[in-house]
Each structure stands twice: as C-alpha cells, then as structure tokens.
C-alpha cells in the first residue's frame, strides 16, 4: 500500500499548512482585486517567494514533514504537476524586456529542483490542465507500486500568469462576485495560486492512497459530460476495490461554472445510486488553483482530518434543481473511512482519487 508521509502548502491562506487549515474554522480567505478588476486568490506577500524558491521551499517542507533523512533524498522521485509551467517566469521577462517568448523549457523546473535539493531519482512533469497534480499523484502511486521507485514527492505548481487568467476570461468562465459551487446562482470561477507538495512511500501512516483513475472524455473539449465523469468515479472505485456505499465524503471539483457543476452533480447521482455521501467544496477557500488544485486541495483536506475535522463548504445558499446537491455547510468530526477527490479539466481530462483515513 502507498501512504502519505508528509506535505506542505502555500496558498491564499498562507504558507504554513497547520495554521492555514486551523483558520478554516472561522476565517474566510478573500480574493484580492487585481489591477484589471478581476478577483484572484493570491499568495500573501509575506509568503511569496521567487518562482524556483517557492517550489523548493514547499518540497523541502514536505520532505521535512515526512522526516526523510538527508541520505534518503537521493532515492526520492520527483513528480511535478502544472498547467502553466514556466509561463509566470516567461511573462515577467516579457513585460520587462518586450520579448514574448524567453524560455519555456518546462523540464528545467524539475532539473533545477533536483539539483538544488539533491534528488537523483526519476523525475517528470505532468501537464494536463486542471488535473495536472492529481494525475502526477496517480503516476507516483503507480510507479511506487511497480517497485521502480521507492519514495516520491509530488508537487503542484500554479502561480499567477496572464495567459491563464485571460484564457479563462475568454471563455467567460470567471466571476467577479462570489465563488458558489453547486448554488443555483453560481456565476463562475475565481482563479488562485498555490504550490503544494506531498511525500508518498510504502511507510505506513494514517493516510492510505487507496485508488486513482484518469480517463479522457472526447465528447467535448470544453464541457464535461455526466456519463464520462461517472465513468472516472466508477473507475477509481474499481481501482480501490470499493463500492460506492463505502465512500464517506466526496471532495468535488466544483468550479462553480454552470456546466461543470451540473455535469459533476449528475455524475454523482449516477454513481451513488442510493445516497450521495457528504459533499465538500474547497475552492471557495483558495480559489481554483488549476494544475495545483489536485495536490493543494488534498493537502488542505488531509491536514483538516489530522486536526480532527472535515471542513465545511462555503457560499452555498440556494439549491439548484439541475444539480440537486447540497454541500455540507457545517464542520463535522473526522472519521476514519474512505474519501473521494474529484478533479476535472479542459480537454476532457478527468481524474478521481480515493484516500483512506485510518484515524490517529
């Protein structure tokens, strides 16, 4: 079995995962207003670092949380999930020097991290839009299970860049109001930035990585379909050898767009035919962190379980009859059991993960 041994996260809620999660009880993190008037969940200035430094810090923090010894680092494989890769660096250079493309070699990110930290094992970047770090987690799990690697650190990276913001804006997917997943009056996404890292190995811990599934839906390049989202949820149940009735909570992808939430809701009704488990939405806390949302929302959730609670969903007022989903609006106690995590992306790239919490 593959376990989570340590993690780290920097997001709009701050740079320390323990206090970031402790603050979920009573503090709402608010998006900032950018110069162009758009809302964005930004990493606070106090925790912001240059591009490579912030990634390095999160990897080092996660490795430290996993209590890995210096001599063990050489056998740690590095998986990095990102949608925008080096665009933030490229855009910064472009604005300063008037050159549109400066340097886009994405493999240099992991090469530089490997050199800085002393990781000598396998390394890869997975770039599949909003499922990037979720898919990186699945790949790490499968390579660990195969025995090709012994330990892995999986990193999700998404930092502010104009291309992503304007691209989402071009599809009219952004809201300037509130991010309201599954609500009848939802208007769309607010993007955010985050870097997170998760250490996986065969060393037992309270968190078991029970299953992962990745599937592609070629019906539409922009809009998910309930049938195919249901397929990826069923696939992860099969992969984890579980039935739908064993799932305690679903952390939904729920970006708060009309189409996405409706498709996910209908898929949930298809898979969980008897009773839909507790539904938790996390994007109102840190925004939609795109390629980093897989690992970042997972870290938020796992740390909350460690601190003894399941976080409440926010900003849900009115049930949408097309969705017929009511996210849990109260905190509940962390129970041992199975938790499903959904992540869906552009290009019909859909993923679902299951983790077992064994209690402390």
């Amino acid at each position, binding site marked *: 079995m593959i376990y989570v041994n340590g993690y780290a996260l920097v997001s709009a809620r701050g740079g320390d995962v323990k206090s970031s999660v402790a603050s979920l009880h009573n503090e709402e993190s608010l998006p900032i207003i950018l110069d162009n008037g758009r809302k964005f969940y930004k990493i606070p200035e106090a925790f912001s670092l240059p591009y490579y430094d912030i990634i390095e810090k999160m990897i080092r923090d996660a490795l430290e949380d996993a209590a890995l010894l210096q001599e063990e680092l050489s056998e740690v494989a590095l998986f990095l999930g990102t949608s925008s890769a080096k665009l933030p660096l490229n855009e910064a250079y472009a604005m300063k020097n008037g050159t549109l493309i400066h340097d886009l070699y994405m493999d240099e990110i992991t090469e530089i991290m490997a050199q800085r930290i002393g990781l*000598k094992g396998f390394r890869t970047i997975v770039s*599949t839009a909003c499922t990037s770090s979720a898919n990186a987690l699945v790949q790490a799990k499968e390579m660990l299970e195969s025995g090709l690697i012994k330990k892995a650190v999986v990193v999700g990276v998404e930092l502010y860049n104009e291309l992503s913001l304007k691209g989402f804006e071009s599809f009219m997917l952004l809201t300037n109001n509130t991010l309201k997943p599954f609500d009848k009056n939802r208007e769309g996404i607010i993007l955010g930035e985050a870097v997170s890292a998760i250490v996986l190995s065969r060393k037992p811990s309270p968190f078991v990585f029970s299953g992962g599934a*990745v599937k592609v839906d070629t019906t539409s390049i922009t809009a998910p379909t309930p049938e195919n989202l249901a397929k990826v949820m069923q696939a992860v149940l099969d992969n984890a050898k579980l039935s739908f009735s064993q799932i305690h909570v679903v952390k939904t992808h729920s970006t708060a767009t009309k189409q996405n939430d409706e498709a996910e809701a209908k898929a949930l009704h298809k898979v969980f035919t008897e009773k839909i488990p507790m539904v938790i939405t996390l994007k109102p806390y840190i925004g939609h962190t795109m390629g980093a949302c897989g690992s970042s929302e997972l870290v938020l959730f796992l740390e909350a379980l460690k601190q003894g609670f399941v976080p409440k969903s926010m900003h849900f007022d009115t049930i949408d009859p097309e969705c017929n989903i009511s996210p849990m609006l109260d905190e509940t106690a962390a129970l041992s059991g199975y938790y499903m995590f959904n992540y869906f992306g552009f290009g019909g790239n859909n993923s679902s993960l299951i983790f077992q919490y064994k209690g402390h």
Partner: protein
Amino acid sequence: MYIYDFFNYAEFLEDKARDKKPLLTQKFNRTDNFINLALYGAQKCVGERILPKDSVVYLASRNGNLNTTLKVLDTIFNQKNLPMPFSFLNSVNAAKLFYMAKSFKLEGKTLFVDRFESAIPQAFVDVKKNKTVLLGYVTEVVEDLALHTKLFAGLAKVEESRWLLLSPKVEEKKALAHISNIQFGMQETEEMYSKLFSFLEEGVLGDNFYFRGDNLSFNVEKL
C-alpha cells in the same frame, strides 16, 4: 516492454514547415501546427490498427506548441486583447491529448509530459499492467525561423514527431524490439531518443542499443 511499431518524423527546416493537416488520416477543426504534427506521427505509427479503448497516451515535449503560445501572448501583451478562446485552449497541453484520444477513440489515461526520458518509465508501468501505450516526442519550430534561431541558439531547426507503439508480449503479434533494464541516475544529456529511432530504422536483428539519456538508461534489443 515490447516495441510493436514506430514512426520517426524529423524535418530540418530551411524554410516554412510543411502543413501536416493534409497528411492526416483523420482531421479536426481548430487544431494548430503542433497538434497536427503530433497527430501525423501518431497516426502513421498506429496505421490501420484499432487500439484498445484503455490504451494510454504519453505525449512528451519540452516546449509544447510554441507558435500558438506566441500568438496568444502577442494578443495579450502587445494587442492588449483577450485571446481567441480556441487559441488559448490549444495552448493548454490537455487539448493536444484530447485530439489524440479522439483520433484513436480512446477513453483511458492520456498524459502530457516534459521529456521522452520521463515518459518511458511511466509507460513501462502501464505496459506491466497489460496496457497498450502510444508514446511520442514532439518538437515544434517557431514559424519565424529567425526568431527561432534567436530563441534557441545552437539548436537545429527540426520539427519532430517520433512515436513508439508499446505493449506487453502478445505471442501472435510480432514485436520489433524489447526494452528492458530501466534504471535512473545517468547524467548523459545527448539526444539519445533520435539515436534510438535511427537504431530502430537501421539496426539489424539481434542488435542491442544502450540508451543513456538524461537521468535514464535502458536496453533495447532488436527481435
């Protein structure tokens, strides 16, 4: 892990790259040069075969679609406009995978990764699980060749779309070569992948090729 087929496309550009779209056996609206380049290599590699629906795709590229990214950045930074939605979408790596999956009617895992060297071990794990894997390495050249030269000084102006069709051993089908002994930790940085494809094209039966790439080594034996 066995190589059942391969396709090796590399065009050294002196002038404008040729349009790959007319060469495709299945074409799609709104695809850009990078996507057409990837589809061309993959379609030639697969040929008439019908891939299992759960086949896995690894599309590796260091730079992705340079021309579309350049166009989108120009719209945002120079023209101060929003990008055209489908230009933005083509710049997202998952979009390339969408067309690959659609072309071969796939429903399984499709991943865009950074390097040929990182795709091979991941494919090895899938093949061990009895999956068929289509693995390609694609490089696009900036349309403005002078700009390409400026940006990538010292590198040849080569458009590449090099593909492998990988599977576990299926007795009734004839494999071309066998990949074994995958190890990490090598520090060679030569472009070994192009040599691997040359070996597949030119080597003789029984020949061995020792791939020593960036942080990866493995053996390839011609069958």
